């Protein structure tokens, strides 16, 4: 049975961040996941905190940290260094991000012609962040026949003042669908196919040429920007995007689409690459069936496999299996919310409160904040004793109780900060009081 210093369970942002940080520091880390996770569904940006009224992510973090049940109440100070650390690594992998916790939160267009609020985004989405000058035009351009991005409909919607909710906006919005070579007969075009098409330098040159001409035609020489579907290259994104910027007459930005999210897959690939390059292991497609505990400590993780289970002995576990959506928390027919792997105590509303009278009540849903409570070192709490339930299990990401990620837009920030914090707790750190002083600490120092 193989041995890992740390087994990270879950391939979302929390698990990836924890594993990347641990691997970088020299720990033998294995990340296991039942399948691909939130990266493939998200927009690829980093939503740190956007509660109502916050002008910057930093302000948002401060507001949320003031709520005593929120993870930011104890993780708030980790957000800035964790995000800085992560974006530095992403940039080194050819996937630069723009924005910090001090960047003003701004409204940017979505693929259905609405707007959403962001501050930290991949470089390819960043041109949408700058304030709109009075004479700027917004051209929405995309491949003709591509069903996930309708330039005319998007432009029609973005031309309405109400969509921008009081934010500054382009004075004129025009949509243009561009015929790309060989796609006319395609009924089932998807983001992935387009992204791979843009990875091909020859096809790309012709596509960009057609898009550039169409944008020049409809913009009529005006200043402005061009919104494009987020399909500009997958493995060759950096190159593709540089070329796109150079070729188009207006400053382009990518608009994220329905899953599979190309910006999210770029993020997954970049982090996967970092983890592997640093000697970490990633096993996707392995469902954890059981975590073995002995004397209050986890000793091994067992995955379902054909016939016998696949066991990995370990000194510590980072549990980043997600909340209700990710399957880290499971609702039973009896109205209980359970954490199925370790049976951790879940802080959840009573069953009677699960069903609200109002669908999509603006006040939010009480289940949103459900999750596992931890001490400041992310150890899950045993409510009976008020102390850590297990010495070497750390909880990260959406499973943490007290966050209302949908309304506070704090999911990415909590994931990154807690993933990073979990790694810090497990690593010997000469700059802080070391917490993780197990065999891991000794091994890395030696």
């Amino acid at each position, binding site marked *: 049975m193989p041995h890992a210093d740390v087994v990270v369970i879950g391939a979302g942002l929390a698990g990836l961040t924890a594993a990347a940080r641990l691997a970088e520091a020299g720990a033998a880390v294995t990340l296991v996941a039942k399948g691909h996770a939130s990266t493939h569904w998200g927009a690829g940006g980093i939503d740190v905190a956007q509660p109502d009224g916050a002008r910057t992510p930093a302000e948002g973090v401060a507001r949320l940290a003031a709520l005593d049940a929120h993870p930011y109440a104890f993780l708030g100070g980790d957000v800035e260094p964790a995000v800085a650390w992560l974006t530095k690594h992403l940039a080194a992998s050819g996937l630069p991000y723009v924005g910090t916790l001090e960047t003003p939160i701004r409204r940017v267009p979505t693929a259905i012609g609405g707007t959403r609020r962001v501050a930290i985004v991949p470089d390819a989405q960043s041109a949408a962040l700058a304030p709109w000058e009075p004479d700027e035009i917004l051209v929405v351009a995309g491949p003709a026949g591509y069903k996930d991005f309708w330039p005319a409909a998007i432009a029609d919607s973005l031309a309405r003042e109400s969509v921008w909710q009081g934010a500054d906006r382009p004075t004129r919005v025009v949509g243009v669908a561009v015929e790309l070579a060989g796609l006319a007969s395609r009924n089932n075009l*998807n983001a992935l196919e387009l992204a791979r098409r843009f990875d091909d330098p020859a096809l790309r040159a012709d596509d960009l040429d057609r898009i550039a001409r169409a944008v020049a035609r409809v913009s009529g020489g005006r200043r402005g920007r061009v919104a494009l579907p987020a399909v500009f290259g997958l493995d060759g994104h950096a190159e593709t995007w540089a070329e796109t910027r150079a070729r188009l007459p207006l400053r382009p930005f990518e608009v994220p689409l329905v899953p599979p999210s190309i910006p999210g897959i770029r993020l997954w690939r970049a982090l996967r690459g970092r983890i592997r390059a640093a000697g970490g292991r990633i096993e996707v497609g392995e469902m954890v069936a059981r975590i073995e505990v002995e004397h209050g400590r986890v000793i091994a993780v067992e995955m379902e496999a054909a016939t016998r289970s696949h066991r990995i002995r370990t000194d510590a576990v980072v549990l980043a299996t997600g909340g209700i959506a990710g399957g880290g928390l499971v609702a039973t027919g009896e109205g209980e919310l359970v954490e199925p792997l370790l049976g951790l105590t879940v802080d959840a509303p009573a069953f009677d409160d699960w069903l609200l009278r109002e669908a999509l009540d603006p006040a939010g849903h009480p289940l949103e904040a459900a999750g596992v409570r931890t001490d400041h070192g992310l150890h899950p709490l045993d409510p009976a004793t008020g102390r850590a339930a297990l010495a070497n299990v750390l909880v990260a990401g959406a499973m943490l109780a007290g966050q209302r990620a949908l309304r506070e837009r704090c999911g990415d920030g909590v994931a990154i900060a807690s993933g990073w914090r979990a790694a810090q707790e497990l690593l010997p750190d000469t700059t802080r009081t070391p917490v993780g002083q197990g065999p891991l600490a000794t091994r890395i120092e030696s």
Partner: protein
Amino acid sequence: MTIADIIREAALDPHVSSSADECLKCNVCNTVCPVLRVTDLFAGPKYEGPQAQRFRMAGGQQIQGPASTHVASPDHSVDYCSGCGWCTTACPAGVKIAEMNNQARGRLREGKRPKLRDWGLGQTDLTGSLGVAFSPLANFVMANGPIRALIEATIGIHRKAPVPKWAKRSFRSTWKRRGGETGASASLPGPDKAIVFFHGCAANYYEPHVAEAAVAVLKRNGFETIVPEQVCCGLPLISNGLYDEARERACTNTKVLAGYARAGYRIIGTSTSCTHTFKAEYEEMLDLHDDDTKVVAGATWDICEFLLDLHDQGRLDTGFGRLDEDLPYHAPCQLRSHGIGLPALDLFALVPGLRATDMDHDCCGIAGTYGLKREKYDIAMKVGAPLFEKVKASGATTAACDSETCRWQIEVATGVRTRHPVEILFDAYAAGDAAR
């Protein structure tokens, strides 16, 4: 029955066909499909699997009766699924996509006479034994350009597809001639001193050296080898939609092997696809749920999995000598379906000087017999192309891979000799002995 009961029951339903209900339509499976990456002829696992499944189901049951095409599948494109299994691995919702597609392929062919080629590719024991019997001639024929062109035109096996050379003598006949244990002895060594070896067709007819290396490595670690009567595991039949014949093979094997399994013997194979067939496909694909099948599945080990387990118990002889070489390693799709990690890489790490590198590529393209077929050869080569480039760029003279058809594919596509991990370990032991 309450709604909660219904939900609970649905969640526990282990059946491949109804797992389609779990699909969130998130498209993650399409992002990892190697075939979709290179061709438009395949619509992708999401469409072929859970999406098309609704046409195959009625009232929660698979539609029975004579399978007309529109009942089995909306169209024939599911035939372009290579069965690599990446989609099932990536699915966050637990949908058994690859398995669903495999069953759909089987149903497309139900009640029809199989193509001669597809039937023939399933008959690995027949082609294996005939080829060995006439090996000089058979090898000449299969290496002859004009004849291969003729075979392509008539039968549909691509002229450039990687076909291995038949051995001069099968592993079984050598083993018997040498007086090797076939299970006939009155006093067999106990299950702590011997294992049961399933050589499968590849090690028997084409690569007896792999079987010999396995026997030697096992002996070195204190295990005698028993080679009982056995037939093809049936996977090539399953892949070609010949489920009834595959069931016959399965029952022949489990009848013999179950006795050993019940006596505590472990069944070890060098073909990672045969061992996976024992472990999972008899039950999942062939719907065999008898005790023999279950006990054989539970006793089956891939050889690297077994050796790594020995190491974990501190029982593996680690007297490996130095092998100062780069070794590109390809983890085959079938191995990933075992869910055992990459045991070969862990074993390579025990060999001093050996620089094994995971090529980190999804699929070599061959997918058993898929890449041999005239209409699929180009797809298979495109799927594997990045792997071939990496192997060539490594500058290594030898590569390693646990699956035979992948080895042949990589070897023909790159010109780099590709070996089973156990052969590398055999060499490492030899180097250790020589240094002493």
